[in-house]
């Protein structure tokens, strides 16, 4: 049993959150939280339902990036054409989140705050050096992606704080992105997934390359691929070397669905595949 709050403004929400502190959980999409409650694996004393905060239900494409409000459903973000034009990786990654029905309710910001090591949105935020806007009665603060994810299911959101938006910067000019993942069933959590960002210089040689992995560590794993691919023409990259570099840097674990060794292997394979896609897009 929990006490239920349904604030109608962000200010009200922050006041309630300040009150209930660590004994409160925010209910946005609920697609991760409610199963946990249904199975009685957690019992927060307070649930703060933010689904009335219509002012947070936006996807805003700005000159430098896309800002996603706390109440924007994955489906909304996925379908937004302007957001796709600015940051195509968002749609490419989000269509891998579960199934459309889940995405109709689950929120992208909520998914980031949930910080599941297999979550696509946290990896996209990490790859693009995005940031989270957090609010409390004490004011607002911004936390860059690199500092946001602490441990599995743990972000640096403090008790009493509400994540109000996530910001995804546009990749630099002459960049390409790609998302690849392997899951057991369509829509399942990935055994291994990767988002790749390749930026080319004016000669269409690789100027920067990085990859963010899911399901390979406690938080998204960011790997700089430069050592393996920098300076190469976009269509003559040694993706095998990139794969080897990645395999040397990730430390996945075994679980009932796949071994660590297989995940490590996948990391290399998917880096090569996504990398080639991203490089091609960068050159186009």
């Amino acid at each position, binding site marked *: *049993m*929990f*006490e*239920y709050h*349904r604030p109608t403004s962000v200010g009200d929400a922050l006041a309630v959150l300040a009150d209930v502190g660590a004994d409160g959980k925010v*209910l946005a999409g*609920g*697609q991760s939280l*409610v*199963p946990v*409650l*249904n*199975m009685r694996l957690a019992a927060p004393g307070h*649930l703060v*339902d933010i*689904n009335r905060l219509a002012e947070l239900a936006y996807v805003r494409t700005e000159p430098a990036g896309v800002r996603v409000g706390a109440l924007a459903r994955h*489906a909304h973000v996925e379908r937004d054409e302007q957001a796709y034009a600015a940051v195509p990786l968002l749609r490419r990654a989000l269509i891998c989140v*579960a*199934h*459309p*029905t*889940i995405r*109709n*309710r689950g929120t992208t910001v909520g998914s980031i705050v949930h910080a599941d090591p297999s979550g696509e949105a946290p990896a996209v935020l990490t790859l693009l050096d995005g940031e989270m806007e957090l609010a409390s009665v004490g004011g607002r603060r911004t936390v860059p992606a690199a500092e946001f994810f602490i441990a599995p299911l743990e972000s640096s959101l403090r008790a009493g704080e509400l994540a109000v938006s996530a910001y995804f910067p546009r990749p630099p000019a002459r960049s390409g992105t790609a998302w690849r993942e392997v899951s057991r069933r*369509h*829509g399942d959590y990935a055994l291994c997934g990767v988002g790749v960002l390749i930026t080319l210089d004016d000669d269409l040689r690789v100027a920067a390359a990085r990859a963010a992995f899911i399901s390979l560590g406690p938080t998204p794993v960011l790997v700089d691929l430069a050592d393996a691919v920098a300076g190469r023409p976009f269509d003559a990259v040694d993706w095998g070397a990139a794969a080897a570099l990645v395999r040397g840097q990730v430390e996945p674990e075994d679980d009932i669905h796949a071994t660590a060794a297989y995940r490590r292997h996948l990391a290399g394979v998917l880096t090569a595949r996504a990398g080639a896609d991203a490089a091609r897009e960068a050159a186009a």
Partner: protein
Amino acid sequence: MTETLHATRLVVNGVAHTLHVPARRLLADALRHDLGLTGTHLGCEHGVCGACTVLVDGEPMRSCLMFAVSADGAEITTTEGCRAPDGGLGPVQQAFTECHGLQCGFCTPGFVTTITAYLRENPLPTEAEAREAIGGNLCRCTGYQNIVKSVLRAAELVAPEAAVAPQAGGGLSEGPR
């Protein structure tokens, strides 16, 4: 210690109701037990099987992953609401009976609502699209083959005028609705 009850307004299949339910009452349980609409079923209560899928303001959502109070003010459509106006079978339901798209029928409500919403967005799916459309709902009886057929048949029944001049490939139809 009794639970606080929250007044919750739901318009379900076109009929307005005010329920007084505890906050933790799932939307699925409210529909089934408070409103007696037992067509919506619970197969897992963790959002994976899809038998509980209903339309919330026209969008398919898992009613086992929503609290009724959260849905306050929403328009809900259940499988009962997918019937024809005269109470007979609606086009998606009719398609299922024509194509042997159900066996035990327990998962079927989730498919009916999902497909009803899907065909509004994509009235003329290809077979591959039809299979993808039902890809988030589990069925243990049919092996999905006849459900895929049911989607295609439902498309014909929903918009027969669109079906007369079929699109060559997939994608959104630009025909009359």
